């Protein structure tokens, strides 16, 4: 029933010419910006028109842009999606139907359904440490505008990126987390993004994460799609990591092949902070992950890694950027891809060391395995170095499984498929090693193995799926 409104929105957009995707969204905004704003919060609305103007200028990115060379989003963006501008409640209670499939994980669990934060049933029962605020971005923007004002859009609005600008214009809600000075969350926070709709659907949400000085938090983001319709999610996450703060961000995507997942993760690190970001794509349709980490203080430590297992017609492009603005920081980057079927992988590893960032060490590795003749991999590591007292390197390889190692295993009686599996598993293992939540690490090991065995073809795990 409620979906009618979504459909109504769809129709209003569908009035514009088919195929000219951008124009229809531009019309939609022009016609409905009042209701978009009405169902969001003032802090978010402040930059909304500017974001829209920027989107009008930039439009959706195409492969002609250097930064989107390996992300062909044309087909995904041509689909006529519905948008839930009027915030019609979605008929699903994730707490009833979602059962986390990471055995033994103790987490603070939250949901964003499509692009709306799902109200937590009992905040008190969560027993969050004092001062920690987790909830709906829109709500907290209304109740604590002073808290948001300092941060919201500070990393995103200056980005010359069509998807980020689009998000700035259309995002009305999202996930918010605030960890005050010297507070350390002992349990990971789990954010499950569930996509659920009866019609082709687009979700734009904005996440904001603030760790004050000396704070510590782990966030596990899981992307799930539920219904067999085409989904597009365009999410922007801004993370502010204060001095001496420690932040771990694990993003696990396990969505169906009709999903287009566009995610932009922007992290700002202050002096002596420590960040781990791990972006794992187990199963998906079309994925574009942008991860940009700015090191804005001395003695920062950054570990950025990711893994992709792709087959069928899956397409994954990880675009990463680490910018060393200050001296004495260390960054390590590691991405691994295993591609089969007609999968297409893309990787960009931009590493920039600014003029004054002396004594930087930055190492980057991208290794890729193609399992057949139809899978494709494109990789573009790049170093831009403007300081001299640095140690920087990158290495990239594209190849197939090590035949001699496989033969060695076979000669010890291991079957060919099992040898392949072992090698692939070993290949991806070092990315998994960077997960510091033991229960999650074990679970992902198991999922990767299942995935490599071809047993994981759909978003298995959440109860809604079954």
């Amino acid at each position, binding site marked *: 029933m409620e979906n009618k409104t979504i459909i109504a929105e769809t129709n209003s957009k569908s009035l514009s010419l088919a195929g000219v995707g951008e124009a229809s969204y531009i019309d939609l905004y022009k016609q409905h910006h009042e209701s978009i704003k009405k169902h969001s919060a003032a802090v978010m609305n402040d930059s909304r028109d500017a974001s829209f103007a920027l989107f009008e200028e930039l439009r959706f990115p195409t492969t002609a842009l250097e930064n989107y060379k390996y992300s062909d989003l044309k087909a995904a963006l041509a689909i006529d999606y519905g948008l839930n501008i009027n915030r019609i409640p979605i008929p699903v209670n994730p707490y009833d139907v979602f059962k986390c499939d990471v055995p033994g994980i103790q987490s603070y669990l939250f949901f964003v359904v499509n692009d709306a934060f799902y109200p937590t049933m009992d905040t008190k029962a969560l027993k969050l440490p004092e001062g920690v605020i987790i909830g709906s971005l829109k709500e907290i923007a209304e109740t604590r505008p002073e808290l948001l004002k300092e941060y919201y859009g500070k990393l995103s609005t200056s980005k010359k990126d069509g998807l980020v600008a689009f998000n700035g214009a259309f995002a009305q809600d999202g996930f918010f987390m605030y960890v005050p000075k010297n507070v350390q969350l002992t349990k990971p926070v789990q954010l499950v993004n569930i996509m659920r709709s009866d019609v082709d659907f687009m979700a734009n949400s904005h996440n904001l994460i603030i760790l004050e000085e000396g704070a510590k938090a782990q966030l596990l983001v899981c992307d799930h799609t539920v219904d067999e319709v085409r989904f597009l999610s365009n999410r922007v996450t801004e993370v502010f990591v204060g001095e001496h703060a420690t932040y771990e961000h694990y993003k696990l995507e396990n969505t169906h092949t009709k999903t287009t997942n566009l995610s932009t993760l922007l992290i700002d690190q202050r002096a002596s902070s420590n960040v781990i970001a791990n972006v794992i794509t187990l199963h998906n349709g079309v994925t574009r992950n942008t991860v940009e980490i700015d090191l804005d203080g001395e003695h920062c430590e950054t570990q950025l890694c990711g893994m992709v297992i792709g087959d069928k017609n899956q397409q994954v492009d990880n675009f990463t950027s680490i910018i060393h603005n200050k001296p004495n920081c260390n960054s390590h980057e590691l991405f691994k891809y295993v591609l089969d079927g007609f999968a297409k992988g893309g990787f960009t590893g931009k590493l920039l060391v600014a003029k004054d960032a002396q004594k930087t060490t930055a190492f980057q590795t991208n290794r*890729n395995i193609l399992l057949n003749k139809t899978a494709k991999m494109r990789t573009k590591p790049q170093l831009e170095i*403007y300081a001299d007292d640095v140690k*920087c390197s990158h290495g*990239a390889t594209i190849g*197939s499984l090590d035949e001699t190692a496989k033969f060695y295993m076979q000669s010890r009686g291991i079957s060919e498929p099992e040898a392949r599996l072992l090698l692939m598993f070993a290949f991806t293992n070092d990315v998994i090693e960077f997960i510091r939540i033991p229960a999650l690490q074990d679970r992902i090991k198991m999922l990767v193995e299942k995935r490599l065995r071809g047993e994981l073809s759909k978003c298995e795990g959440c109860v809604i799926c079954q």
Partner: protein
Amino acid sequence: MSTDILDQVTQGDYKYGFTTDIETDIIPIGLSEEVVRLISAKKNEPEWMLEFRLKAYRHWLTMEMPTWAHLTVPNIDYQSIAYYAAPRKNAPKSLDEVDPELLKTFEKLGIPLQERMALSGIAVDAVMDSVSVKTTFKESLSELGIIFCSFSEAVEHHPDLVQKYMSSVVPYTDNFFATLNCAVFSDGSFVYIPKGVRCPMELSTYFRINAMNTGQFERTLIVADEDSYVSYLEGCTAPMRDENQLHAAIVEIVAMKNAEVKYSTVQNWYPGDKEGKGGIYNFVTKRGICKGDNSKISWTQVETGSAITWKYPSCILLGDNSSAEFYSVAVTNHHQQADTGTKMLHIGKNTSSHILSKGISAGKSQNSYRGLVKVNPAAENARNFSQCDSLLLGDKCGAHTFPYMEVNNDTAIVEHEATTSKINEDQIFYCNQRGISTEDAVGLIVNGYAKEVLNKLPMEFAVEAQKLLQITLEGSVG
């Protein structure tokens, strides 16, 4: 050996910066269809050549200058450049007819055009401004069936070969600068090595820009027929002038079955002064095709000159089992900018390519490696290994690496490694402790760092290149 070189080099100045006072036939500045026709008419070209130029010119009008390189290119006014300049006495029949001033110029550059070059075993084609001045050894080479002459002569005497191969590797639509070259190119060198012939000597072209406000647009075409071999050298210098001058050249190489072509460049166009004033804008399209099975093309370049370098000597690996190499040392100092690298396109089966790039940045310069390795779906068993190292001398320069790898076949092995570091202070101290001054130590270390590439150059060039590295970096260590 190094000390000899160091002794010779006491000044860090550009020593090829003199101008030659000779009569020059120069056309008015500006570019139009008339100018294209005028160039063609001055060279008495056949109709097909004029048509080719006009086709390119009309296409060029639709193009825009590329901006993707990591370069800050000031606005270039293409209407303020003269597109044709030639020493007045054209096409000398023998050495006696060559303007003596011109001969002196090349003598000064250390490029004697006399036949005594036989002793050093190098045949030279000298190109001043836009025109090939004199090709030595033409006769002795022709006995072997080798054609080594100016491009204009080739158009006149070997139109079939020129028509067959010109633009077959770099199409006239290829890129902004290549298309411009197709419209206005003035001269260049042409080489044809017939089947089964190993060219017994190094072939060399020496390019010199002399006249003011001119651009140099030469093109070189090298065709190595089946089972042949040739090693080709290219050197370039220009006078010191305050204004910038444009150089937009094309080099095409065709290697047929079992043929091997080695192409070496020592590029030392005037880089501008220490404040970044003047210097050559060097926008060059170089590409070879390994057309036949088992063919091999190797590019070696030492890039020390030019205010701006935009250059990607590339290889199309079409033939099965063909192989390609790219060895590069690029040094930038003061305000120089270089964006250089290669493209390796693997199409045939069992093809291999090897890339070794050594960048050295000093002063306020920016030095980028940009490379593409692409493996097509049918290119079974393609192999590539790339190594790109950058060395930084000083904290005001930049060193950048932009490798692109696109692999569409699972039997490929493509590997890339890059490192960036500053000159190692322990190494300098170690040299100091043995009595070697810091400046000399830097020279030694840099030459050592670049050695793998320098070793690929023919002997005469290697010595020249080592000297150049030393000169280019002088004054870069405080």
